[in-house]
């Protein structure tokens, strides 16, 4: 994985020193809260309902064991012994004290991590496919380009005060596991005339105005990508609305202006930038790519996993094999999803002990690599198939052996009203109730993505859940709107709202009604919930829910 150069190390160190001084001045009363707030937000420090919350960037969701041990150490030393992995592939700590944050940032810098640009109206942490560099269906490993985007966007002086926050996602595979069409810019690898470049999508997003991104260019070569991104950002920075934060994202600009005109303006800007200083030389791309070279896979690794035999021995292990392994590009290897969705637990949370144990698994079995997925799970990307059983047994010991990846209990849920100052309703208890209700039957339902947000800001991606749940507050009561048919993949779709909200207690029953429609009317056991919904339309689901 990438290692900091002198520039990276210097700017992270300098920022840590600056923030340490700013905290001292704040405590001494030399800075008011109004002066301090933007400074702390630039360093990922929010004030939530109960305490400060520190959001730490995990660049494109990639970690090594040393970094994961450090995250565990921070949880243990400065927080309450756990961290929360997020849909932005980051980690959040919910209980740090203000005067400890400079020390936390110093400790993060020791392992080449920071919290810069995890908040504010700037380009946020670039996200990608959690199986990048390992997936069997990849055209190209997107991480070198993601790293180059990280370098370009870090402390970019022109883009530090954009109209609103800006999120970029990138995938090197044709199957989109990074939700690129729901980002301000989405990049998807593409082949043209034997060359690999990037399809560029712009103007996607969730929040109060969910939109599927539109394709602005079907092929941008590597060498032109930064210039093209800069051209998009310049057009957005110039025309994006600053008078209304709810209309400030680029999706609104694209929607109101039209993709054709936006494309014209971007192309005009790009013509000015092309072949300039932002042109990416192949030798620089090659240099960055060496950091992401494939690990030394064993050529003779055993390529057989006897799932049927294991099913006879241990049903839970068989379920784990079926759900939590992802096909690797290297014969004899697999990627393992470590579900942070044990039934009844908080989605995305991991204790310090669990983080330490997972770090050791990565060191021993996965070439020291770990990934954070936008679905709030962790991934061991490069595991020998012959090691899977040993890893499973170790996961059992730490309570993280749930074989539920992609099933109904593998729920994305934002922190919701239990923690978040913006939330209107709780998300976590709803996720726990759903998981408890359906865990025993989840294999019957097959792939089913449930996503829960505690407010319209949609951090829980409810718009793109096969079943989405949005918490709202009405006259002091939490109500939950249910949507069906959302899809975060390359077939991107925003879910349909079925009708009025239901109370939290009623949510599991409501889902049961939807699932009954699916089970009764699916063509066969191989037709997934989402396909059945697309075939049947919303009417039978609406009828089941509201009569």
């Amino acid at each position, binding site marked *: 994985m990438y290692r900091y150069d002198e520039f990276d190390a210097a700017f992270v160190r300098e920022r840590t020193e600056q923030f340490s001084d700013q905290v001292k001045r*704040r405590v001494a009363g030399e800075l008011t809260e109004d002066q301090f707030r933007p400074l702390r937000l630039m360093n990922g420090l929010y*004030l939530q309902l*109960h305490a400060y919350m520190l959001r730490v960037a995990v660049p494109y969701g990639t970690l090594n064991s040393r970094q994961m041990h450090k995250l565990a150490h921070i949880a243990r030393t400065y927080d309450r012994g756990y961290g929360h992995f997020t849909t932005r592939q980051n980690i959040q700590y919910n209980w740090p004290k*203000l005067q400890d944050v400079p020390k936390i940032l110093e400790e993060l810098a020791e392992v080449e991590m920071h919290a810069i640009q995890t908040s504010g109206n700037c380009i946020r942490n670039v996200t990608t496919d959690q199986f990048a560099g390992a997936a069997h269906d990849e055209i190209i490993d997107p991480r070198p380009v993601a790293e180059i985007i990280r370098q370009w966007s870090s402390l970019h002086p022109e883009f530090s005060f954009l109209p609103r926050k800006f999120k970029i996602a990138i995938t090197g595979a044709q199957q989109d596991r990074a939700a690129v069409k729901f980002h301000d810019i989405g990049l998807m690898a593409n082949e043209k005339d034997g060359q690999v470049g990037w399809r560029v999508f712009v103007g996607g997003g969730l929040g109060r105005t969910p939109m599927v991104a539109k394709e602005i260019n079907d092929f941008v070569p590597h060498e032109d990508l930064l210039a093209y991104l800069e051209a998009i950002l310049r057009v957005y920075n110039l025309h994006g609305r600053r008078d209304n934060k709810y209309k400030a994202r680029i999706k609104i600009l694209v929607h109101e202006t039209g993709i054709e005109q936006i494309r014209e303006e971007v192309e005009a800007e790009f013509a000015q930038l092309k072949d300039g200083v932002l042109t990416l030389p192949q030798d620089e791309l090659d240099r960055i790519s060496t950091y992401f070279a494939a690990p030394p896979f064993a050529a003779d690794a055993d390529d057989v996993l006897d799932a049927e035999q294991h099913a006879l021995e241990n049903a839970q292990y068989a379920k784990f094999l079926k759900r939590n392994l992802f096909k690797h590009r290297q014969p004899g290897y697999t990627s393992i999803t470590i579900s942070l969705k044990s039934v009844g637990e*908080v989605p995305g949370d991991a204790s310090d002990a669990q983080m330490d144990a997972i770090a050791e698994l990565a060191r021993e079995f996965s070439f020291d690599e770990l990934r954070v997925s936008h679905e709030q799970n962790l991934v061991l990307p490069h595991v020998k198939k012959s090691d899977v059983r040993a890893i499973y047994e170790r996961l059992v010991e730490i309570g993280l052996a749930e074989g539920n990846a992609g099933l109904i209990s593998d729920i994305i849920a934002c922190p919701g009203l*239990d923690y978040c100052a913006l939330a209107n309703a*709780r998300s976590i*208890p709803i996720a726990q109730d759903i998981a408890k209700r359906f865990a025993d039957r989840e294999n019957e339902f097959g792939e089913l993505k449930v996503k829960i947000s505690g407010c319209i800001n949609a951090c829980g991606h409810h718009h793109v859940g096969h079943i989405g749940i949005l918490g709202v*507050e009405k006259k002091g009561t939490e109500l939950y709107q249910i949507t069906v048919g959302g899809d975060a993949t390359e077939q991107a779709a925003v879910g349909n709202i079925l009708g009025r909200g239901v109370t939290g207690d009623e949510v599991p029953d409501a889902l049961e009604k939807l699932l009954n429609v699916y089970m009764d009317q699916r063509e066969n056991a191989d037709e997934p919930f989402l396909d059945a919904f697309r075939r049947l339309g919303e009417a039978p689901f609406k009828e089941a829910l509201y009569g």
Partner: protein
Amino acid sequence: MKVITGNELLSGAVVYFYGKDRWGMDLQQAQIFEDKAPEVDELLAAAAKKDKVVSLEAIPVEKHDNQLVQTNRLREQIRANGPTVGTYGRQHLSEADYVSL
């Protein structure tokens, strides 16, 4: 009726105005104001100027049995009692090495 609340600067802990420049974590001890009491805005402005409690606001409460102060908004109940999930409870002022109040 209203009480004044905010988050203590160093710990971020939820605190309530007890009166006479005192703040603490117990909603029951919060000074209660009538809805339109003019001093609420003055006290909020004074606390903002002092700047040791942030995210200041006046929240509606109810008094029951002449004793118990309650807030009907779930948001405020969670602020007063901690997350409804897990066993983490609230942030405590005593957890900070130094508390600004």
